Structure formats: C-alpha cells, structure tokens
C-alpha cells in the first residue's frame, strides 16, 4: 500500500484514499445524523438503524459503544464522528478526551487546553511521541 510522508506523525488520522475506502459506509452513516428525522430514527433503535448501512460488525459495535478512537481506526473522520457526539448532546471535548492517550475526562481535557493545549514538543514524530 502506498505510504505517505505524514505516516510518521503520531496519533493522527488523515482522510486520504486509504481512510476513504475503509470508512466510506461508516462516514456516510454518520453523515445522515445531520437530518433530524434520521437522528430520531437512530435514537429509537440504534442497532436497527445501523443495519441499513453496509458496516462491518466491528464498526457497528464501535458506534454502539461510542468508542471514538476505534471509530477513527475503522475509517471514520473526526468531522463525521462529531455528528455522533452532537447527537448525544455532549460537548466535543468528551470525544477529544476519550481519543487522547492517555485518555482524559472532559474536565482533564479542558484543563489541558486552558493551560495552553497539548505541546507540540515531543509530538511531531512517532519515535519521540509521549502518547
């Protein structure tokens, strides 16, 4: 498979052709949550709604469990994943913190940002990564 020169950036998921193909149906499902009637239908029966899309069992389970980092591994893009956390009426920092390694609570993520954000030092290359 073609490699990219950003593949050595730690903890980073670029929506390129590899992710696009892996996550097509997952992201297209997430996209439907822009519509109020789809959000309603999903709320009523999450598994039943997911069955309408060509998702792998792993992808379905990650959606049901709100495992956001797994969703990225399975091809979701963060802007599409945003639709799920919005559907749950939770602030996005819940998702950002859950994806972080080590994992952070909402409060811990807010605190990190309020103290200047995650430093770039030590986070540019996988072989120097703190995470």
């Amino acid at each position, binding site marked *: 498979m073609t490699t990219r020169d950003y593949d050595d950036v*730690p903890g*980073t998921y*670029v929506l390129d052709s590899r992710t696009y193909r892996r996550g097509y149906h997952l992201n*297209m499902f997430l*996209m439907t949550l822009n519509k109020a009637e789809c959000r309603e239908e999903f709320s009523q029966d999450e598994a039943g709604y997911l069955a309408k899309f060509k998702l792998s069992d792993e992808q379905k389970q990650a959606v049901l469990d709100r495992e956001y980092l797994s969703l990225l591994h399975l091809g979701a893009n963060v802007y599409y994943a945003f639709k799920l956390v919005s559907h749950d009426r939770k602030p996005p920092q819940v998702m950002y913190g859950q994806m*972080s390694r080590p994992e952070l609570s909402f409060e811990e993520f807010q605190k990190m940002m309020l103290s200047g954000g995650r430093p*770039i030092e030590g986070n540019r290359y996988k072989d120097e990564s703190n995470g």
Partner: protein
Amino acid sequence: MAKIIAGMGTSHVPGVGAAMDNGKTDEAYWQPLFAGFQPLRDWHKDNVPDVNIIVFNDHATSYSLDNYSTFTIGVGEEFIPADEGWGPRKVPNLKGHPELAWHLVESLMADEFDMAVAGSLEVDHGCTVPLSIAYDQPDEWPTSVIPLCVNVIQHPLPTAMRCYKLGQAIGRAVASFPDDITVGIWGTGGLSHQLGGERAGVVNPEFDKTFLDNLTADPLANAKIPHTDFIRDAGCEGIEMIMWNVMRGALNDKVNEIYRFYHIPVSATAYGAIILENTD
C-alpha cells in the same frame, strides 16, 4: 470598478457560535475571547463593504464522501444556515450576490481555475461563525455574502500555493467587475489545532505567530508550506490555514496589519484573527 478594501482572517470554531446563541459570552471561559473580538467588531462597524467573499470549508454538512469539489462558489440569491447535527443556528439567512459571484466564476474559469458552482448551498459554522464574530447578533447581516468553499478535509487537498494563486485570481476578477462596489475577503479556519486521535488538542503558538507575521511580510513563505508541515507542526486540522492564503492572495502586495488577536483555548484550538487593509 469593484474594489477589495480589506481582508480578515479568523478561526471559525463552532463553539463560538454556540456560546453566542446560548447567551454564554459573559462566562469566564469565553470572556477573554469576546473581549478580544471588540476592536475587530469596532473596525467592522466602520468598514462595511457591499459584499464579503467568505472562504471557508464545509464540515461534512453539505458535502461528503459521495461528492466533493476542491473549490466551490455559491451563486445563489440566498444561503441558509445548515443543520449540522444539533439543529440550524438561529442566525439570519445570508443574502447572496449572484452578479459578482457569476463574474468570479467566469473570470476564474478563464484564468484556468475550474470552479464548481453551487446554486443552492446550506452553510455551516465555517461560514456563519465568522459573520457572528464580525457583526455580533444583528437582525440581518449588513453585507451580501459569496460563500467560497475549499476542500481541506478529504485529501488530496489543493496546495497552499494553489490557494494563494486562487486568491490572486480573485483579486484580478474583482478588479475587472464593472460596478462600483466594495468587497471584503475573509479567510477562515485554523489556527493550529487537532481534533482527532491520540494527539487531540495539540497546538503550536510559534508556528501560528510565524504564519501571522508572514501574512503581511512574506505571504509567499506561507504559500510554500507543504501539507505535511501543517499536519505535523500545526495539527491535522490546522491545515485549514491554507484558506487564509486565498484571502491574502486577493489583496495587494503591500497591506497594513490593522489588528491581530490570538488566544488559547477555544475548544481544542488556537484562535487567531487578523485584519489586513489594502494599501493603494
């Protein structure tokens, strides 16, 4: 002849719109940000153009994996705020400017920029939050708007240089529009931030400062930044900064920096704003 009077760069974080829409701007978290908006809003009050070209990106709202264009111009009479998953923002609809928008399309195509044309476009926070930052909460927006979407999500993206050159072509196009109207151009998004993955929350004030300095002093330096440098040094979503190059390219070679504001954090981002006035 139409004339570009100024450019603005600003982040377009959805939380800023939500804070305004839900009356939270006096809270301690938001207060420093809205204090920093005040000089920018004062400038906008005195410098209202007939139309603003707003360069922004759609965030899986109107466009998604099934159909995505690199550059899109909205040519409609009106644009409505989109439902992005939590209901549409209750802000005024945007009045379009079809005459200038179509002139841009024709001029840019002749200049070898193959633009997608949107007659109908529901605009997300990328477009409405900058309007709220500049104009607060009016009953209607004080200018017409031409939305110009850039793909900064689904790779391959246009290069930073391509965005700068698109801006230059927009500058030529506006200068050749026969009506005597004034035009503003806004580059939105950024600054350094990463929303997804184990590294979520990464920011880089040093990178941002150099980028802001170079907007005035050396815009070509910003146009030469490779995508991977943005991703590595400014975060995966920091690459939105290439849209500021469109804004800068549309201005004259020499500009005056009128105002700059930088603040961490807004949600998971480094917020930045700048106003650049054209010099004759």
